[in-house]
């Protein structure tokens, strides 16, 4: 099969061992070294085929990221392939990554010859049939689930006939600016050719042949790109320090250990466009002078791992990775390392320990990894999203990038918006956009039109922002000032039914479990903090003066201990662990007070404070609740109203779940 990298005729000298430096440009505009119409046509035909422009075929794209797969995309993929074959329609069925509209999964796009690529949402087998019947065979559009059209390039976006709106006009897309997600959901992530077709590896050629390493670093410094993993350290400066450091070997590591619960940005990028990250990494390696690299990826992301493996193998086979990349004399060897499930390994020194085969415990800095990292050699560590930005900056220039966002936080940020919003999924917005715009415009507001209560931003290290701060601009400094942090990009929206004390407890429970145990403030401190929270979410059963006094003291203790941990813990995980507590204490103090003083949970979420009662008028005495009660706290005769023994009740709520008559009330 002829690919973009195959020799067009015997005049082409490109091989894996002796790669041609013009490989990438030649693939798109070639042949460059000789003039031949037939060679040019060969390449052009291949490009058209990849681009969905081959008039012989109908193209079908099925969204097969983890969320699509979880929704059953594999079934639709197989069904579509079989049906197209049965109906004798010449077709190319492709698996693409996640487009980010998770609530619209399963997404299927269809591109017919000469017509734009149309995207359909929430496709089931029935809808798949309908799409085939009316759209593929008869050019009519089905009702109700057409999302919009996707422009593959500028030329065919002009061809849109007005029947279908561009997908950019969908509410969740309107304010987005896709830089990192430029290819996600559009191309087949397993195809190196498709990435190149969309302009991929052009930036690498530019960096290798037209720029000195220092110039690459300067471009990145000038662009103002800051680390997208949480801290926000200027990426170019990090590179500069590693370049300057002395060492026989240098390493670059891509931190893809996305352990933040409720965040899946990195996973989607790795699944949807692995090459963008790898290209960024090779450019970074060239800039700092590293010849070896690792991608440290969570073992819980099997699909991302497989796609990375495929990408690395393809690159090696085409002379874009390994010895003498594109004949430039620059060597770079890339390996995958699987994380084994430890949140703390997102911290760079812990990550290094883990790659070395040890327990992932952080060590004090300095020395920073830039001077002494993996096995003591200078090491540069960047996050997935940071690296995916790099090729675009090199390709389009620092000025282009700087024009997006705010002066101190340039570019875009990808967020995983989840929780109680109508639309959930992956969005990429320019920095400086307000939280309100994200939640109420892109997110479509809250489900069932409930009242907004808080947005948790930044995961276990971040904080909860209340409705008063909805107009906070999303950039590193404003968020820090508000008591949250950018974090990796998790954004969980909560409504009035969420208890903020419970949320704080949830995050503390997480950090307590994930604390590596090396330093005392974090190991013991988080456990004590959690203990305090446990006491206030349960009622005081002794009800004596002494026990109540103890209960009232907890509020002061909570705050004091939180600050001690913040000031004394050894690494980022410990220092930021109390943030969820501190930010909820700051903005939702009355909720804590209700728990402590009134022993009442306003959101009715803290089970320890609830009182369960059976309404005798509604209870029919079926006995299901008594059977489901784990502690035998429900008694009563069959066909007669039951009642709950308050002292025995564990407040688990199992009875409420299973009562067929809604006879159990909670107060």
């Amino acid at each position, binding site marked *: 099969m002829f690919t973009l990298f195959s020799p067009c005729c015997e005049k082409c000298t490109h091989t894996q061992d002796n790669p041609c430096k013009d490989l990438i440009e030649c693939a798109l505009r070639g042949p460059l070294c000789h003039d031949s119409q037939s060679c040019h046509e060969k390449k052009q035909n291949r490009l058209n085929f990849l681009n969905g422009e081959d008039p012989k075929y109908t193209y079908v794209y099925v969204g097969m990221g*983890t969320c699509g797969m979880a929704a059953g995309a594999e079934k639709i993929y197989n069904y579509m392939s079989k049906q197209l074959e049965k109906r004798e329609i010449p077709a190319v069925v492709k698996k693409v990554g996640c487009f980010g509209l998770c609530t619209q999964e399963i997404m299927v796009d269809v591109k017919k010859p000469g017509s734009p690529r149309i995207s359909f949402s929430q496709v089931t087998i029935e809808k798949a049939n309908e799409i085939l019947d009316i759209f593929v065979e008869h050019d009519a559009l089905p009702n109700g689930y057409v999302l919009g059209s996707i422009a593959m390039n500028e030329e065919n976006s002009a061809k849109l006939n007005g029947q279908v709106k561009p997908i950019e006009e969908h509410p969740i897309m309107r304010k987005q600016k896709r830089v990192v997600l430029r290819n996600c959901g559009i191309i087949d992530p397993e195809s190196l050719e498709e990435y190149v077709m969309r302009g991929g590896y052009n930036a690498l050629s530019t960096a290798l042949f037209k720029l000195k390493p220092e110039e690459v670093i300067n471009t990145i410094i000038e662009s103002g790109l800051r680390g997208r993993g949480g801290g926000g350290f200027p990426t170019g400066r990090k590179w500069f320090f590693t370049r300057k450091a002395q060492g026989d070997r240098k390493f670059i590591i891509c931190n893809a250990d996305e352990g933040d619960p409720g*965040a899946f940005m990195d996973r989607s990028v790795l699944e949807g466009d692995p090459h963008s990250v790898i290209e960024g990494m090779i450019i970074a390696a060239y800039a700092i002078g590293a010849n070896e690299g690792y991608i440290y990826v969570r073992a*819980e992301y099997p699909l991302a791992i497989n796609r990375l493996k495929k990408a690395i193998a393809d690159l090696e086979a085409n002379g874009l990775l390994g010895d003498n990349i594109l004949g430039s004399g620059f060597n770079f060897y890339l390996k995958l390392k699987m994380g084994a499930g*430890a949140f703390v390994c997102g911290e760079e020194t812990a990550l290094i320990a883990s790659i070395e085969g040890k327990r992932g415990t952080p060590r004090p800095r300095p020395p920073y990894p830039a001077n002494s990292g993996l096995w003591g050699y200078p090491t540069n560590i960047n996050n997935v999203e940071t690296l995916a930005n790099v090729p675009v900056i090199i390709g389009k220039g620092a000025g282009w990038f700087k024009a997006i966002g705010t002066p101190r936080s340039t570019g875009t940020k990808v967020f995983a918006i989840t929780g109680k919003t109508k639309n959930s999924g992956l969005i990429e917005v320019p920095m400086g956009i307000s939280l309100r715009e994200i939640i109420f415009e892109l997110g479509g507001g809250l489900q069932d039109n409930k009242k907004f209560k808080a947005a948790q931003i930044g995961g276990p290290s971040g904080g909860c922002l209340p409705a008063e701060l909805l107009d906070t601009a999303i950039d590193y400094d404003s968020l820090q000032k508000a008591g949250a942090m950018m974090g990796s990009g998790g954004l*969980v929206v909560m409504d009035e039914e969420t208890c903020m004390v419970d949320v704080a407890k949830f995050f503390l429970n997480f950090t307590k479990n994930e604390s590596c145990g090396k330093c005392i403030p974090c190991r013991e401190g988080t456990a004590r903090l959690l203990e305090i929270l446990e006491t206030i979410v349960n009622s005081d059963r002794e009800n004596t003066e002494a026990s109540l006094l103890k209960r009232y003291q907890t509020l002061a203790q909570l705050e004091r201990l939180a600050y001690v941990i913040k000031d004394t813990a050894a690494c980022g995980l410990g220092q930021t662990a109390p943030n969820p507590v501190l930010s909820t204490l700051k903005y939702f103090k009355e909720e804590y007070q209700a728990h402590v003083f009134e022993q009442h949970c306003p959101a009715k979420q803290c089970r320890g404070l609830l009182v369960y009662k059976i309404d005798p008028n509604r209870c029919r005495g079926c006995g299901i609740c008594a059977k489901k009660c784990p502690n035998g706290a429900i008694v009563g005769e069959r066909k007669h109203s039951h009642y709950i023994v308050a002292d025995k009740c564990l407040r688990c709520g199992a009875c409420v*779940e299973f009562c067929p008559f809604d006879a159990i009330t909670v107060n």
Partner: protein
Amino acid sequence: MSKICCCSKDLLAGQDEKIQKLFRSYSKGEENALIPILQETQGIYGYLPKPILYLTSEYLHIPIGKIYGVATFYNQFRLKPVGKYLIQVCAGTACHVRGGGLILQALESELGIKAGETTQSGLFTLSTVACLGACSMAPVVTIDGDFHGRLQPKEVVKLLRDYEMKE
């Protein structure tokens, strides 16, 4: 080899070749191979059998205590065999906010075990996982890798019945 107990012979009998091959793909004394070896061992057996840990210790020249330290540090590793079906309840933020805790509770009371344990029948192992990344389907449970999303506690119990019926 003297440190290995007698049961190791049975254990190794079936998998001998796979384990040998696994060791051969790393060089002796290569310290950074520890985590990949443990991961692959777990891929073969479903957990980390003690005799294999001793073999690993000898092969990589790492004291067994250190290996135990690593194996217990990371959430991924298990020192006990798992049941036929592994139930993973997502404990991510989105799932928590949408009632993931109730799902876990329903499973715990239905199976009569706590998270991290295996039923006596050996059929189900219940565990929690930090985040499966399928937040739009919250709350999510996977059984044997199959995703079940937007669950209610009642549905989870029904789901278990379906799996029990298969047996």
